[in-house]
Each structure stands twice: as C-alpha cells, then as structure tokens.
C-alpha cells in the first residue's frame, strides 16, 4: 500500500478483539477502509459483523487492539456521542426513530447535535430549515413531515433514519442491514440512495441479502467467526472456496 493511501484511510482497525464472557466475537481483526469507499461486509451468522459496527460506534469496548479514525483519532478515548459528533453515523438493524415525535421533529433532533442545551431553545435557522426540507425530499418524506414517525411504514422509517444520519453529514456512515424487511421496490430505492450518499462519504454496509449485495456492491469483505476471511469483488468472493465452505450447510446464497 502506498503512502498516499495511508493518509486517506478513514478507518484503521488493528488487532481488535472483543470478548463476551470468554467467547471471542471478534478475534484479532484487522480492517481498513479508505476515504470515500463503499464497502460491503458479509459473513454467516455470528461472524462478528454487527459487533464490528458496535466497536466503531462505542457500543461495545474491545479488550485489545487499536481503532484509528480519520488518520489521527484513537476512538477508544471517546464516548459514543463524541464519536457521532466527529462524524461517525450509524443506522441500526431495526429502524430506530423517535416514534412519538413527528417526522420533522425527528430531523430537528438530528440537526441539533452540535448545539448546546441552551442553543436548542432557539428555533432552527432558515438554513437549517432548508436543509431539513431538502433532506426530506431526498428520502421522499417531504409530504409526510408533520406525521408522527411511529405511523410510518417500515421502509419509510428506515429512510427517515437514513435521512437523520444524512443531515448530520457524517464522514463515515455505518449501515446495519439497511434493506432488511423491505419490499423489492424499496430495496432498489434504498440501494440507489446509498449510491447517492456514498458520493461524498465513506460507507460501510452490513448486509445479508445477496441479491442486494450483487446489485450494489463493488468491494466485499467476508468475516467468519470474528476473523477476516477474504475480500474482493462480489464475483471473486462468491467463487472463493473458503467462502463457499463457511456458507455450506446454510443456503449457499447466504441467509435471506
């Protein structure tokens, strides 16, 4: 790897180990993501995909290893909210929006991340209002701004969550199964949305749905029992005998 690539690494994970009561969910994992890259992460159940996202966001603490963000920040020193403020956004597996707030209010909550508690007493500036409006348009919820988020359909909740992330303009976006439980049409729309998002930032996607991966992934990393297994294009990975082996006994196409 040349020196230029190293300076443009957004996320550098070295020798990270996570242990749950002695069970190593992640075991000495090395993982590197370049600035502006879109990476798909696959692997059978228990491979450690979600755990990897957990240690990046601070939900889980590793017992060993280094996580360097944006070339200079040692992530382990920061609590969860500080990591978000420094530009790591995460979409959870199940849609996590605030169901008793309206769509608009959810966006308001997202945009105020850098305000002080006192600053949150004033109204949004007109620039902020415009940004909320345009983001709602991007995710196709501009007509439903006043509706309670809890009444949205499943796919719309997922988009709202992605919209809340977008408006925070993260440098690194982590998406945990963004199309789970979606209809085929919604899946395609989401895929296009991800491609759009990835133009300006780095994205790491955990996904089970192999159709979706085939359609939208360029570079795929495969994890198995908490370790790096292999990486490459979708085609390379699918034909890799090691990958076929770990998926054997399940559906060869992965869990759907």
């Amino acid at each position: 790897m040349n020196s230029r690539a190293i300076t443009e690494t957004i996320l550098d994970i070295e020798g990270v180990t996570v242990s749950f009561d002695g069970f190593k969910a992640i075991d000495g994992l090395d993982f590197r993501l370049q600035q502006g890259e879109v990476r798909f992460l696959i692997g059978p159940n228990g491979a450690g995909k979600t755990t990897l996202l957990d240690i990046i966001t601070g939900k889980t603490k590793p017992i060993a290893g280094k996580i360097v963000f944006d070339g200079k920040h040692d992530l382990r020193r920061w609590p969860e909210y500080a990591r978000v403020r420094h530009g790591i956004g995460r979409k959870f597996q199940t849609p996590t929006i605030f169901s008793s707030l309206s769509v608009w209010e959810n966006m308001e909550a997202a945009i105020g991340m850098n305000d002080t508690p006192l600053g949150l007493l004033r109204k949004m500036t007109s620039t902020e209002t415009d940004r909320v409006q345009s983001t709602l348009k991007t995710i196709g919820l501009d007509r439903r701004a006043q509706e309670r988020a809890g009444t949205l359909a499943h796919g719309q909740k997922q988009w709202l969550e992605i919209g809340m992330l977008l408006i925070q303009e993260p440098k690194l976006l982590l998406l945990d199964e963004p199309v789970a439980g979606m209809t085929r049409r919604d899946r395609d729309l989401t895929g296009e949305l991800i491609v759009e998002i990835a133009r300006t930032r780095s994205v790491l996607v955990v996904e089970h749905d192999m159709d979706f991966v085939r359609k939208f992934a360029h570079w795929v990393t495969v994890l198995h029992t908490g370790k790096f297994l292999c990486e490459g294009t979708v085609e390379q990975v699918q034909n890799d005998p090691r990958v076929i082996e770990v998926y054997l006994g399940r559906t060869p196409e992965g869990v759907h």
Partner: protein
Amino acid sequence: MALAAVVLLGVAPSTLSEFNLSLLGKFLTYAIVALGLDLIWGYGGMLSLGQGLFFAIGGYAMAMYLKLEASGKHLPDFMDWSGATSLPAFWQPFHSPVFAIAAAILLPALVAGIVGFLIFRSRVQGVYFSIITQALTLIASILFVGQQAVTGGTNGITDLKTIFGMSLNDAHTQKNLYLFTAVMVLVSFLFCRMLTMSRFGRILVAIRDDENRVRFLGYNPVVYKTIVFSIAAALAGIAGALFVPQVGIISPAAMDVVPSVEMVVWVAVGGRGTLVGAILGCLLVNWGKSVFNDNYPDQWQYFLGGLFVVTVLLMPDGVVGAGRRLMTWINRRRALPLALRSAPVAAPETEQVGGGH
C-alpha cells in the same frame, strides 16, 4: 381554556371563603411541583419518587428565614429547648430574605444536579432511579428528625409569625400570598411550555423514547437529564418556599413516602406529558383529598392507591388524555356519513408532546 383558568384563579380571592382560599393556595404550590415532575417524568421518562425532598428543602430554606424573623433577637424556640446556646453558622445567612429565597431555589437544584449526574452517568434507569430517589428522601428525613437542635426535629419549623414584616395571620397577607402563588404557577407553566415546545423538549422526549438512540445521535443524555432533573427540583423548591408562609409549617413529614407518591398520582391522574394535565390532576386529586378527609379521614390512602391503579389501567394518559380521546371520537363520529357510523374508528392520537414546528 387557559385564559378561563387564569381568570378563574384571579377572581377566586373575592369569591372563596378565607379557608377555601388558603386551601386553593396550598394546592397551587403543589401544582408547581407537579409541573416539574411532569417535565422529568411525562417528558423525560424519569419517575422521581423524591420530589418531596426538594419541596422540603425549599420549604425549610424559607422557614428558616421566617423563623428568624419571628424570633427577633432571640434564639429560635426549638433550639432553646434542645439546649443550644447560639445560632449555628449555617443559619446566619438566612437572616436575609434574598439569601433564603435563592437557597430555596438553588439548593434543591444543586442537590438534584449532583445526585442526578452521578445516577445518570452510571446509566441507572427506570425503577432503579425511582428507588434511589425515594431512598434519598427517606435518608434526608431521618437526618432532619435526628438533628433536632438545628432542624426542629419531628415537629419541623413552625410558629412562624410574619413575612417581610406583615402578619401571616392577616387575611390580606394570605390573599397576596395566594395571588403571588397563582402568578408563579403561571410563570412556571409558561417556562415549562417554552422548554417542551423547543428543540430541547424534543430531545427530552427522544430520551424518553430511546435513550441509547439519542446517544448515537450525538447527544450526551446525561447532560439533558441532569439539567431537567435540576429544573424540576428547583420548581419543587419554589413550591416549598411558597407553601411555608401559607400553611405555617414545614416538617420531615414532607419527606415521607406518601407525599412523594401522591405527587406522582397527581401527574398520572391529570395526564403525564401534558403540562395542563399536571396542574389539573394536582388540583383535582387534592380537592378530592380534602373532601374525602372531611368524611372518611382514615380511608384516603386506600382511595389514593385505588385511584392510581384505575388511572394506570383505564386512563394511561390521564384525564386530559381521556378528554382528548373523547373529543377525537366525537369529531370523527360527526365527520362520518351516517351509514359508516357503525364502522370501527381508527385509534386516536393518545400522546401529546411537542406540536408542529
């Protein structure tokens, strides 16, 4: 409706008897506690069973000033009885009414701030938070009872005579205290409303809905919870300070289990998550209590418990929520064509937080 309420409270002094006016004045101080509790519980999802402690701190701070005023150059009577010969150092600044009032507001806020920060930082939530706040209140109560020479012990601080030189027994003084309390209820209400309608209020509701998510949205929930817990404590302190001159006593009884639980019942009955509900519930329950106590003084606590159970089971969003649901139902019935009236009506909105932008 809000205007009608303000007018009603404004004309109360000229229509109610002296006794009933003082009763209403007392209830209004409770309403300020209820507003604060609604803020942390109804909006923030933190059920404090320790608001009685903050109420008592505010009450004691005010009572200390009033007691010194009543005692003149002498030592307060209960200190004399306990064999003390000089005023303890921490009593000295309470000669100043400004200091006493500031203490009544800031001391509860400070205690809540420190305790809250430690609790919230350890991510203690739900029922454990409730238990800790309740335990804290009981500990304080034992402390106050034990330190008779400086706190007045079980009797508390009583036999207060004047406030700013005006006799507390005078009907005119009491009327002014009532009016001032009514204004403070309005001010507190508007303050809480400003908070809950702002983006700060949204974050509070978001914390109630899903605290973890708020953390991953880039906020530190500890900060927000601590701030709002302090605000609720300050409101309870203000209420305590207004309570003392009207009722003439503050004692460790305010830090028993029952008063703090009653405060929760007020908010539950009125409808948590609606500020009007907190005030309404407080006035309703207390009015019921005084009627009940006149007739069956021993059964009130059973009735209170029953009321709480019935509210939780049948009206989870209280009187205000039930009223709102009824209105929605009526409106929908009216809007529907006759032929459709037997069709099931979609679930109405049940919770009221924030509102538009």
